[in-house]
């Protein structure tokens, strides 16, 4: 099946810093989503971005489908940005209707 790798696995930031999270995937995808999982376990959808660039406030994401990677940018980080960020992809139709998640990037923003 499709493989999804996220880097770095852990990230410690000072409040106000900028950061980039990376997601590499091993096959073509029909869907790619970035999620933020809060301490209570809720997976919050940040972006639906199978290709192109999107921005939402301090967050933005870019997916280069032909090169099989996606980037999530966090600017002017805040303590509320702490948590685990997951990249998840839905592969070609033959692979079935499911999201495959990466291992996540654990982000801690210090005040």
């Amino acid at each position: 099946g499709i493989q999804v790798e996220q880097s770095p696995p852990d990230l410690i930031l000072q409040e106000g810093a900028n950061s980039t999270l990376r997601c590499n995937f091993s096959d073509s995808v029909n869907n790619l989503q970035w999620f933020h999982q809060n301490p209570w376990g809720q997976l919050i959808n940040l972006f639906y971005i199978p290709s192109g660039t999107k921005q939402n406030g301090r967050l933005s994401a870019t997916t280069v489908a032909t090169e099989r990677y996606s980037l999530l940018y966090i600017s002017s980080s805040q303590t509320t940005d702490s948590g685990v960020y997951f990249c998840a992809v839905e592969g070609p139709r033959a692979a079935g209707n499911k999201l495959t998640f990466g291992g996540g990037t654990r982000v801690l923003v210090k005040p």
Partner: protein
Amino acid sequence: DAGVTQSPTHLIKTRGQHVTLRCSPISGHKSVSWYQQVLGQGPQFIFQYYEKEERGRGNFPDRFSARQFPNYSSELNVNALLLGDSALYLCASSLGRRSYGYTFGSGTRLTVV
């Protein structure tokens, strides 16, 4: 509009018991998927249901089963619980069989003792 709702939020069961978890999708969404997330890992796909039919199954034993009802809500059943079944169980809702994005519920945290 209500999001994806799951019940119960927390559950403690004994090894060998049976458990039923419930999920209601976003209104208008016809597809429900179930995922298992053990501590420290990303969620793993268990099932997808669309229009009341199973459309995908992950690498889980036959102790795991699910169904979808005419109102598109869904149940996940796990028989003969093992300690290793302790996890956060997440339900995801999407508009169609092939998604336009998945929205997740808050999950049910199952502890097997």
